[in-house]
């Protein structure tokens, strides 16, 4: 069964600390995407990063294909960064396989 493992399951940080989220895949994939969702909120695409390093504002994603993993780094975290971060990989059947998410809580 194809799987996506995310860690940690939850993370509590103080405001301004950096967050590091991890995602590992059971298969090799050429489609890796990170999403963000607040409780009851919409699913927002953060970064599409099938390989290498990509940055968007305070977010940096690094995907190492041969090691079947991807990370999301959030620098100088803010209270509004709180929510669930999901990573997903694409398989050969057009399906996105989802991780179970990392719940991030940023405290003042």
């Amino acid at each position: 069964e194809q799987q996506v493992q995310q860690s940690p399951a939850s993370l509590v940080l103080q405001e301004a600390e950096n967050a590091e989220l991890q995602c590992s895949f059971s298969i090799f994939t050429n489609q890796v995407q990170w999403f963000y969702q607040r409780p009851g909120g919409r699913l927002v695409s953060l970064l599409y990063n099938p390989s290498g390093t990509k940055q968007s504002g305070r977010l940096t994603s690094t995907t190492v294909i041969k090691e079947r993993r991807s990370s999301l780094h959030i620098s100088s975290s803010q209270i509004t960064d709180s929510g669930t971060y999901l990573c997903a990989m694409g398989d050969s059947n057009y399906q996105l396989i989802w991780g179970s998410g990392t719940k991030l809580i940023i405290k003042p």
Partner: protein
Amino acid sequence: GGIITQTPKFLIGQEGQKLTLKCQQNFNHDTMYWYRQDSGKGLRLIYYSITENDLQKGDLSEGYDASREKKSSFSLTVTSAQKNEMAVFLCASSRDRVGTEVFFGKGTRLTVV
């Protein structure tokens, strides 16, 4: 940029009722998807379509029908709503087949009474 519009935002139905959810995208994307998101569970694929009039079943297709009337629209029908069913249905699209970024709509929240 583009946008994915889902209607309605909230849908309340009765047990056994046939309910239709609609999705429009103006990205000019070929592939469109319907996902279901349940509280505490990951997203599960219901149907997808790689071009107009194409339909492919996902893992959760039982109890649903879909229709890709034209490239920009993809509708999902709950054939018989189940009592106490509560979930968010998410429509998504991507430019091509595998290997391209996927964009999501805001979702339709379904409640069955």
